[in-house]
């Protein structure tokens, strides 16, 4: 029975169509990339991209390479460091801004004028400021997630119905109780959303920061990370590895976001019932 349902699920029309679509996409890609050797004609754009089969071969060769896994490890480490720092500072700051009007009035405008500066524009300044390259990459990563998390926390806390506060206070709850029983549960969903979005941005930023600091600074080997791996493959002319790197980052980002979503729904079980 269970197997039957599983098969039904697997071979449902939408799944089938998805599989067909991806195969067609891969086939077109292969055709476009190989058309130079097969037909002696290079189509624009796609003609310069390595073929999927070539990418698979390159990937297979890399699986046994410790340097490749080292890149995974380094990037993940930087993402996690930046992301947790952003959570650790961003969530309390956002909550405090939502609770205290005066503090909000002072901090929010200053926060808002810094926000339009893209995190990557901070890369050179952060390299100058932080003593090690590791710290400067982590700082830019932190900035990427920080803005999103703070904005989401403030937004979530501000949209709480005033009546919840009033009823809690009229039933004699202390400041701490109001915070613990009203503010925190009400903002948790937006904290989860903010973190998920922030995680996505963190991966974007880490890749670019690794490329810029590695590619621009010329400190070969010391940087590491998947972004650096891609850039190095580009400089070294092994174009298949660029695509391998891109897919690896895609997978890593996807896993992180999914884990975060699972963790989020674990902390906000009441949202599932709707």
């Amino acid at each position, binding site marked *: 029975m269970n197997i039957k349902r599983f098969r039904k699920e697997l071979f449902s029309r939408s799944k089938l169509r998805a599989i067909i679509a991806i195969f067609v996409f891969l086939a077109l890609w292969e055709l476009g990339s190989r058309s130079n050797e097969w037909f002696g004609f290079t189509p624009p754009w796609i003609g310069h991209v390595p073929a999927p089969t070539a990418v698979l071969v390159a990937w297979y060769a890399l699986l046994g390479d410790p340097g490749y896994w080292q890149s995974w490890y380094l990037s993940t480490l930087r993402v996690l460091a930046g992301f947790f720092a952003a959570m650790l500072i961003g969530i309390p700051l956002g909550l405090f801004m939502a609770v205290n009007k*005066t503090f909000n009035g002072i901090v929010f405008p200053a926060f808002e004028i810094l926000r339009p500066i893209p995190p990557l524009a901070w890369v050179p300044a952060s390299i100058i400021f932080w003593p090690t390259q590791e710290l400067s990459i982590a700082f830019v990563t932190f900035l990427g997630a920080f803005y999103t998390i703070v904005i989401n926390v403030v937004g979530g806390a501000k949209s709480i119905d005033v009546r919840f506060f009033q009823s809690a206070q009229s039933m004699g709850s202390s400041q701490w109780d109001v915070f613990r029983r009203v503010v925190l549960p009400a903002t948790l969903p937006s904290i989860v959303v903010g973190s998920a979005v922030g995680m996505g941005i963190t991966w974007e930023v880490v890749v670019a920061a690794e490329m810029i600091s590695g590619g621009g600074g010329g400190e070969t080997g010391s940087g590491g990370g998947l972004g650096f791996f891609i850039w190095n493959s580009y400089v070294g002319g092994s174009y298949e590895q660029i695509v391998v790197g891109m897919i690896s980052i*895609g997978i890593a980002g996807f896993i992180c976001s999914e884990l975060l979503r699972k963790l989020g729904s674990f902390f906000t079980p009441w949202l599932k019932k709707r």
Partner: protein
Amino acid sequence: MEIDQTVALLKRSMPFQTVPNDVLEAIAKLARYESYARGDVIYHQGDFADDVYIVSSGAVQHTLGIGFQAIHPEKILHSGDVFGWAAVLENQRSRLAKTVCLERTELIRINGEELINLFKASPETGDIVMSRFATMINKEYTLPEEVAGHVPHFTQVPVTVATGLTLTMFRLSQWLKSPKPYLMLTGFGILLATWYFTVEVWKLPRFVDMPGLTEVFKEWFSKDPIYGLSIYTPEYYQHIWVSVRRILIAFFLATVLGVPLGLFLGWSKTFREYVFPVFETLRPIPILAWVPLAILMFQGSETPVIFLTFLASFYATALNTMLGVETIDESYSRAAACLGASKWQTFKEVIVPGAMPFIFTGLQISIGVAWFSLVAGEMVSGEFGLGYVINTSYTMVRYPTIVIGMITLGIVGYVSSALVRVAGDYMMQWRVRELALGGR
């Protein structure tokens, strides 16, 4: 209520704000004080309009009747707000709205005819008050000019409806009286002071390498900049223009391609089942990981940067548009089909307008991520542009120029998002008006 208190309340209200004190006292003598409980109806639509009301405390819900073509028929009034202005209109002696108290409310009422008679004695003041009434009716109650045109005037000079400037000035003065601007200045002050003191006065360890506040601003506004980039050099504007042009091209392409794709993805199930999986497989790859591949695919230095910017905007626009189509109530399409609409008509009349709000949300996100990836693209490859300025200033050790580039980027980025938001609000206004008139 004391006369002084009434005068103070009148001074806080939009129409009476600029009236001289002696006239205000005369008006205050006309005022009667009343209080209502929560849920009380002050008047219904169509009642005889005798008095003008000013809220002293509490909250009143003001609902304009259908047929007056208000853009926003609902309005909540708080302390200092004026309503019941039908009592001072010419040729209008019945209430246009229904008003209900939302909580315990205290207010003063002034007889409209007595007020008009009082202004006949001081026509100049009367005209100012009445033109402010007209502005208020137009802007605050969003009623078209015909209604505001009924406002009487006393001198021979014809009264025109005041422009929004009066209202803007009023809001500005209210804002200046609140603590907000001072807190804001404190915040900016702390930010700039931290920068100044840590770098240039105390010379704290790591901070001393950073470009300082005065150094950056001297360079930025210098006629003869040391590192060659300030508001007086043409290169500065050339870099800004190059970045803006890239954004414009990428944003335009992303909108032109992303909106139709999103609409079709949401509209046709078959199309979505075939196309969306490919879209979803490519999406987790960060835009910035595309940089080297983009350089390979598009030869040269200009196209790769535009492609990256485009890609980021494209995802945001297409996804939000699709989401917008999905949120449209199925029954609208069914109703259209029942009335004999063809597939194309349903698409044009139901799907496209229904997805509008989401499309604009998407465009706002899209312009943000466009700047985000433009900077990355310019830093890694490309000649000219603000990202390029920041990166080369670093490699050439022109540190103050880095900060000039960052600040400029922030300003230009902010202005472009604001423009998209204003454009969206403008289009939405049309939609809101349509919704409000929908009940007619």
